């Protein structure tokens, strides 16, 4: 379990690094793309999340060892959910 958590952390660190790069530099090869990461390595860069998930399933069947990021998306700004609960 600890190994899986470490792997997830490595994937997420890489994903965040790519996200920062793509948002700061519109000429980055990642800008506007989706990236798939498995076991700490970028394994696919594609225009759609569907293509990324398809490729990730081929490379690493355990989704816990994978990560998908929308490179130019803003994951930091607080998103408001108006009350429905």
């Amino acid at each position, binding site marked *: 379990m600890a190994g899986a958590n470490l792997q*997830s952390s490595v*994937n*997420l660190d890489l*994903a*965040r690094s790519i*996200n920062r790069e793509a948002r700061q530099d519109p000429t980055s090869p990642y800008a506007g793309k989706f990236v*798939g990461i498995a076991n700490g390595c970028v394994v696919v860069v594609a225009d*759609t*999340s*569907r293509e*990324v*998930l398809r490729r*990730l399933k081929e490379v690493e069947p355990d*989704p*816990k060892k*994978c*990560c*998908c*990021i*929308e490179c130019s*998306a*803003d*994951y*930091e*700004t*607080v*998103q*408001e*959910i*108006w*009350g*429905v*609960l």
Partner: protein
Amino acid sequence: MAMLQWPLRNGRPVVQVVLTLTDGQSLVRDLVADTGAGTRDSVFDLILDEDDCLHCGGVPADTVRLGGAYVGSFPVYFVDVRIPELGFDQSIAAVAVSQVPLGFGGIACFKFLRRFNYGDMNDPDRFCLESLACP
């Protein structure tokens, strides 16, 4: 263009989506349609129960910070979502939460709804989605 409509549930608009479990079986979820959930530019389309995200083999993304009805940092997963009657079949981002609105399987957020024409389509007791015209 295909159109699909659902009767209001508990007086609220609802849309029905199909998720796919890791064993290939379908998992149907009725989501409250909420244009006040997120914005056009949000990184997520849906809010789902975290168990559903995991049971459907959701691929982790980053976390996202929410305010309002949900407060804090929540994980985001990419999951395969279908509405077969509308020909919708895409991998989209869902925020995973531990508590969804009572009587619903989650929330269809504004970013998801605007993938379609949406509204009551002249029947105030129903909620409709209509596939967009192809560009």
